[in-house]
Structures are given as C-alpha cells and as structure tokens.
C-alpha cells in the first residue's frame, strides 16, 4: 500500500493528541501495518513517555536534521509489537530547530519504508504546528466536547484546509455520556454541526487512559476498556473498514436500563 502520512493536531493543548498518536500507532501496527510515530512537539517531548520508550532514546529528530546521525539511528523499534517505530524529538531545543522543509524531507524519506507515518503535532497555530503539518498528506483533528476546544479545532481546520492537508477527519475525545444526556456537555452531533468535517472516532472519557499513559503502555496493547476499543475502531476506519460508532449519547439500552424503564425509574 502507499504510505499515508497523517498529522494528529488540535489547536488547543491537553485534548489528547499524544495519547491518540500513541494508541493509533499501536493499533495500526497490530493490524499488521508498518508504522512510525514522530514526536513533532520539539522542546516538549511526551510521545516517548506515553509509548514507554523514553529510556531507549539515543538520538532525536533534531539530531537527524543537524546531521549528527542517520534517520534510522533515531528510530526506536517497539519490542512489544512488530513493525512499530518511534522517532523522538529533542527536549532541550525549541520549535525553531526544525523547518517545514526539513520535516517534509524527513517524511519523504520515510514514505518508502512505512505504511503509516503519524506525526504528533504541538498545540497552537504557530511554527511548531506548521512544521509538523508540513510533511503530512492528511490530518486527524482531535477535540473534546468543550466550547474552547471546538473553537480552536475550527481554527486549525481552516489552516489545514489552506495548507491542502486533506482529508481532514475528526476525533471527539473524552465524551461523558451522562453529562451529554443531562445537556451539560456538547453532544458529538453539536460538535460536527460546528466543524462540518468527517467524524472518524468518538472516545469515551476513561480513567484507564491516565494510568496507561503514566505506565507507558498505550491502551491498545491490551484491548479492554471503552477508550481502547474506540482507538481500535478508529484504526480500522483509517484503513477503510466500516465500523459502527459507539453509542455515547447517554441513552442506555442494556437489560438493566430496560428494566429501570419498565419500573419507571
């Protein structure tokens, strides 16, 4: 298959870009694809921690750009799943250490060897975002159902459209069905109505995301929780499979809720 280079971005910080990058990288590798995840957030390195590879870093993306090492020397192979690699970024440098042209050159070098290149973008709309997006063909925009996050996602979608990074697909993260049901949180349809892009995934709010990030074990290694299943579904949709979306509307349809409805509770 042709290599697909995807930037994972959001505009607002803290909505789950890095977690999404790590989990999708693992899920796509589990599907049998050869995947490399690049940490595009120069100076605020985190992808290595979430993927549990921080102790194996020798060279970084900036070392490759400066000619200190070859590209394959900066690539860390994940031993837990075949075909998964990560390129960390530098923690002691700033966003100016990488240019759009250099990012594009690195992505083009990876194009021949991988099925998927996932780029974890920094928050914001400045040079860091532009550099991360420069090498990508398409984009995944992550947002949470909060007005501020949706507004920033709207801004970033406008910029991605002007950079011709299409298709642009949307992931709505940290949905709390009970809050949606009470009308205290934007529903996925509300977010879609504002952003007017294709939805590729909805992820429920899940405490296990925090513990897995702290442990350095992306959830998709151990298919268990709701969020884990949501990431696996997104990976399948990225590959072109039709997978039904989880019901996160807060309207319970299980046996117990039917029983409650029957008894009028």
């Amino acid at each position, binding site marked *: 298959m042709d290599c697909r280079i995807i930037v994972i971005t959001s505009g607002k910080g803290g909505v789950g870009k890095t977690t999404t990058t790590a989990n999708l990288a693992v899920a796509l590798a589990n599907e049998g694809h050869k995947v490399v995840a690049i940490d595009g957030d120069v100076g605020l390195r985190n992808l290595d921690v979430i993927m549990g590879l921080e102790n194996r870093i020798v060279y970084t993306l900036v070392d490759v750009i400066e000619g200190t090492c070859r590209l394959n020397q900066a690539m860390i192979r994940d031993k837990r799943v075949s075909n998964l690699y990560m390129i960390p970024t530098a923690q002691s440098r700033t966003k100016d250490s990488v240019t*759009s042209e250099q990012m594009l050159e690195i992505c083009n070098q990876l194009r021949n060897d991988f099925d998927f290149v996932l780029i974890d973008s920094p928050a914001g*709309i400045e*040079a860091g975002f*532009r550099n991360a997006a420069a090498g990508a063909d398409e984009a995944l925009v992550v947002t949470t159902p909060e007005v501020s996050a949706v*507004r*920033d996602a*709207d*801004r970033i*979608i*406008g*910029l991605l*459209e*002007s*950079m011709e990074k299409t298709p642009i697909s949307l992931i709505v993260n940290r949905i709390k069905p009970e809050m949606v049901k009470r009308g205290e949180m934007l529903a996925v349809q509300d977010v879609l109505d*504002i952003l*007017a892009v294709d939805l590729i995934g909805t992820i429920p709010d899940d405490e296990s995301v925090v513990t897995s990030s702290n442990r350095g074990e992306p959830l998709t290694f151990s298919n268990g929780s709701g969020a884990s299943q949501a990431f696996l579904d997104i990976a399948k949709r990225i590959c072109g499979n039709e997978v039904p979306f989880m019901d996160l509307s807060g309207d319970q349809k299980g046996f117990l809720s039917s029983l409650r409805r029957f008894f009028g509770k």
Partner: protein
Amino acid sequence: MMIQLKGIQAGILRCVVPEEMSEKNILEEFEELTDSAKNLLDGGRVVMDLQGRSFGAALVAKIWKNFIEPTGCSVISWEVTDQETFEALFQLGMNVGNTNKKTKQGRPSSHRQSKTLLYTGTLRGGQKIMHEGDVIVTGHVNVGSEISAEGHIVILGKLKGLAHAGFKGDETTSVSARSFESGQVRIGRKVGLIDKSSDIWGKAVVVTVKQDEVLLTEWPAL
C-alpha cells in the same frame, strides 16, 4: 525591477512587489530588505502591495517567514488584483483589500464584475472576508470569523461570528442569516448587541437599520 518600500501616511509603509519578478528574485529581494531595512520596518505598519502577480500560499508563507517575522513589522493589509492570490491570502486568514482593482488580463473574475462574492463552505475561526460589494456565504460563519462587506451580507448557515454590512458607512445595507447566533452585528457605523436569551436567537433573521437603530426582524417578516 525591484521591490520598493514607500512611505504613504502616518508612518505606514507600502511594499510594492512588481508583477514581472520571478519567485527566486522575490525571495532574494525580501532577504536583502530584511537586512537593509530592518530598523525601518521593526514595529512598523506595512501595506503589502502584490499587484497582479500570482502568489500561491507557499510563497506567501515564505515571505511571512523570511521577511515579515524577522523584521518585526505588522501587515495591516494585503493588496492584490490576482484572484488566485486573493483566495490564497484569504484562506490563510489575511486581511485582503483592494480586490476591486482591474483584474489581470485574460483572467475574468465573476465576483468582482458582479460585485458579489460567493463563498462556498464554512468560514472558520480566524478567517476574514473583506469585500467591496455584497457577500453570500453558503455555509456557517463560525465564532472568531469576520465578514466586512461594503454591501449586503447573506449567510445560508449559522451566523456565530461577526458580520459588518456597509462597512464604509452605508446604513441601507442588511445582514441576513438562516440562524442568528452572534452577540454582535454591525451595519454601517451602528453596532447591535444581542443577548443569548433573546427570542430571536437561533432564528432566521434580517438585520437592518431603522430610525438610527439596529433592528433584528425574524424572517420571513409577515
């Protein structure tokens, strides 16, 4: 033929890029200007006059990165007559003006001939339309986006951003939206403030000025 910096008024500089220059020459000239005119440009306000040459988004981005950012100047407006350049700048969220000049020969522009700009799609946060005529938007006008039109504004989706009809002072103009969800709307020199709790919020609305006041009427007005 070289890029010229001219003083126009109140400390504003006009940077004129001749049409005949190649991309390579433009970038070299801007590089030289960055060194030679840094003191003049630092903190200054500049009108970028790109004339009729076609500039893609990539070239604009290079000019931004290699000239505007390093010199510390702020661009108050981009003046263009080429339609593709207008669209590229607009997509980048730049303040584009002077689109009513004569277009490049052989490149017809229906927007300017009819003085109506049809924008297909949703106007996203940070994007801005400034047009010397009427403006029609087929999608939504999202929060953080702006439309300034010399004439009327018609929005077929939701109006959540800022719409300013008759921005040169014409208060006979109007703003029409299928769903009105904005806290502020402007017609000519009048500003209308609308509260979310208003009965008209979220409804199809026509905004006009009557007896010196901004009037919101539910559409259709029976």
